[in-house]
């Protein structure tokens, strides 16, 4: 279980967090349909480091930079 440092609450167990998606899969409200559909269905799935969106039960949304091989968390920023 990951230990995720919430900027609000400090290091907390992963079970208090919910994974949302990778940052590159965020569909912006004003994106053109072609871009939005590509964002949804034609994404890269790179090996290694990824930017991810998570939420903490305190209500804070987070941007994690995380290695998907080693699970190491490089940075956590509030969104």
């Amino acid at each position, binding site marked *: *279980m*990951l*230990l995720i440092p919430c900027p609000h609450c400090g290091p907390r*167990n*992963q079970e208090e967090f*919910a994974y*949302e998606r990778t940052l590159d899969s*965020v*569909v*912006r*409200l*004003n*994106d*053109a*349909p072609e*871009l*939005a*559909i590509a964002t*949804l269905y034609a994404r890269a799935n790179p090996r290694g480091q990824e930017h991810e*969106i998570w*939420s903490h039960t305190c*209500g804070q*949304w987070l941007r994690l930079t995380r290695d998907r091989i*080693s*699970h190491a968390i490089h940075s956590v920023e509030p*969104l």
Partner: protein
Amino acid sequence: MRDAAGSIPFTFDGKAYAGQPGDTLAAALIANGVRLVARSFKLHRPRGIMGAGVEEPSALVTVGEGARAEPNARATDVFLYPGLVARSQNAWPSLAFDVGAVNSLAAALIPAGFYYKTFFGPPSRWMLYERFIRRAAGLGKPPQAPDPDHYGHRSAFCDVLVVGAGPAGLAAALTAVDAGKRVILIEQDAAPGGSLLRERVTIDGEPGVVWAANVADRIRAGGGRVLLRTTVSGYWDDNFLTAVERRVEPGQPAEGDAQVLWRVRAGEVVLATGTIERPLVFANNDLPGVMMAGAARALALRHGVAPGRRAVIATSHDEAYRTAFALADLGVEIVAILDSRTQASGPLVEAARARFVVHAGARPLRAIRRGIGLAGVDALIDGAKRRLLADCLAMSGGASPVLHLHRQAGGALEYDAARGGFLPGAGRQRHVSIGAAAGEHDLSAILTLARVVDPLGPGSPPAPGPLWHDEAPGKAFVDFQNDVTTLDLALAQREGYVSVEHTKRYTTLGMGTDQGKTGAMVALAQIADLRGVPLPDAGLTTFRPPYTPVTMGAFAGPMKGDHAAPIRRLPLAAAHDALGALWVPAGAWMRPRAYLAPDETVAQASLREARMVRASVGVVDVSSLAKFEIAGPDAVDLVAAVCATPVAKLAIGRGRYTVMLREDGMVMDDGTLWRLAEDRWLITSSTGGAARMARHLTYVADVLLGHPRAAVVDVGEHWAGLALAGPQAAAVLSGLTGAEAPAHMGLGDAVIAGVPVRVLAASYSGERAFEVHVPGHLARAVFDALVGAARGLGGGVYGLDAMDHLRVEKGHVVIGAEADGRVTPADLGLGGVLRKTGGYVGWQALQRPALVGPVGRRHLVGLTSVDHTPIAEGAMLVMREGEPPLGHVTTAAPRVAQDGAIALGLLTDGATRHGQIMLAWSPTRRSTVPVRVGPPLFYDAQGARYRD
């Protein structure tokens, strides 16, 4: 030396025995002369005790009775208690006379790859074999009754977690405690000491076991926590480990928790997990009487039990020589020591030569069976085959460090050719391996600060091999638990299952409770030889948690029964109880399903309640619906992003139906949107989607809109909601409020029974209706007033089923039933309510070609039973029985306004099929009903009844 008579009574297969305090079940059985303990998994071969701890592959037994029975307990990992009841597994009718073994059908039918080939063959073959396999092969049977025991969960932190209380682990834990660290020391055995429990060394002048107990006491005295009988089952991310503590033995009734699942976050982890001895591979190496040399030594030195009368020691290294001394001191005749090395020297070997017959360059070829046990061994001695008579064969093919936790943590492995095995390499998390687990074998080197005296002198490292031989007729086992032999591994190679991961799945190598503890290295050695590659190139299978089996109850812990999930009760639960509500779970909530009159069925009550609403007026509790208030200067932007319907032009004091989409364009939720003030909105949405909607709202606000000036408040628990519906609803409401009821889709404040309430005029039933929102703690008086007034006009309360009947007649969808995550608004006939300008979540995806194309989508349709027979929910919609379905029934209901049965369904191109007759076919419910497809609207098509 051990007393002849034991003081602890127990039974095995119904026969009474007695053992000594501190005995394992295995030790007590051998002390009582019981050698046949189990039948093997696939081949039903007779098996005895092979190991000394959790790694025991063969002696699996069921311990305990009735609901407390624990299958697949390792006899070596169960400590005796008075009244212990153990049974053998996998044998019928009895252990000694097992049909599965006698007719040898099992052996003929289940070669390696049998399951594989059967699963990939035609289904008929699997059907044919299934019954046979289920009876013939298998481990123990789980108990059928609910588990009577309690299981606890504990969380803990520490600076240093030490796994294993052998000499290395004890020394490390004591050092950490002395340095002021918070320390947890975990040991799976019932006593500290590890290898010291089976050796005869003195440390600082004390016997090793006494030294170990004293160190454990000093760790406790220094503030450390010592958990005995506790096994670390998994090493997860960020130094998070789980461990299972046995507070009682298998099958033993507990005062409190039978087991505790520990969840530990550790600063540093020290893995002092020791080694597991490797078997030698020769024909019939699984006979009762053949055991690991270390296990034989543990029986002798720890329990004072002799594993036989005449013993042969077969080894590839020095350590097993100690077993000869230990057994001889108990009076066991040592027939010979067979050492596979052509040259062996050193103090230990010399001491053995002085006392025993030692053959160099010698090894067992084949164990000889008499009855169900070992009678002797054919051995290769001085280049010739010789038969040695013995009832115990203590073997050792070296020792493998226990690397499971190191690997689970992501640590690397290094192959050490000199030691003939894998050693822990660099750790990925904050962990180190020490002692024998790190390849250190010399006790003096482990305990540098202590004075170690070994009366037999040091031996060379136990690290030749791993060895396998396949040179005599008979089955030579590499994986005893799964009945995998050298022939099976060779077959797998011949048939192309070359990689070790493929071999594992093809032969079942390393599965079950064993997980490769005993057999992995010898199997790898053979696979490498067959492939002609060095051992490290043969690869390793993944070390998956748990290290030893964990009972499901430990995972569940206290979260069972009513504690499995929180139950949410309505603020008016007591009032509904007083009215005789029949409760039904709806998500986490308990909601009134119907209010049954005497002698009424649920169906009758629901239909009566629904007709009451159509005829006069009814009150239903809708408190569980999700409710969110959104307020602030930018609130309209947030609402417009979430709701797919027009928003900005909604007048203050008005509401409208709305639908929320996922970003793939599918319907996520629906409800009503109300404008309470210029910058203040109320959204209601489905009960089951409340948590998802709460998250979605903050995602849209924080991530998509970048923190707009709008606050989202979940007011679902603040407001109780009471819906009032029927032709008399307006009369009931104005009678209680003394004011005119709001117009349809209007809202207003009012006072009922002295309580201020908010009234929203929205209809779900198709009748004129209102939702009364009142703070939960004030709801009772309002509820009583509404119900009393409704009764005065021939109405009353109604439940969830009646509400469902009413909405089906009106074609209103339910999230989860009709809106099942695969439908767009257009599929539900709601395309017209969408905002034309887009800008809401999901608008882009609705432009996907597959969604704008004219054909192939499943549409919401209404289904009318042609002959009034009830339609089965979930039934397939087909033209003829047996054809592939074109759709399915989502909700079925009786007609309320007249006799008959109707349903809603999703049907491919359903909008173009109105008027067709189809079959609602449910083979599982044995129901086939002809239905007429039509629009999803059965009542008041003009919508005259719900408007004011």
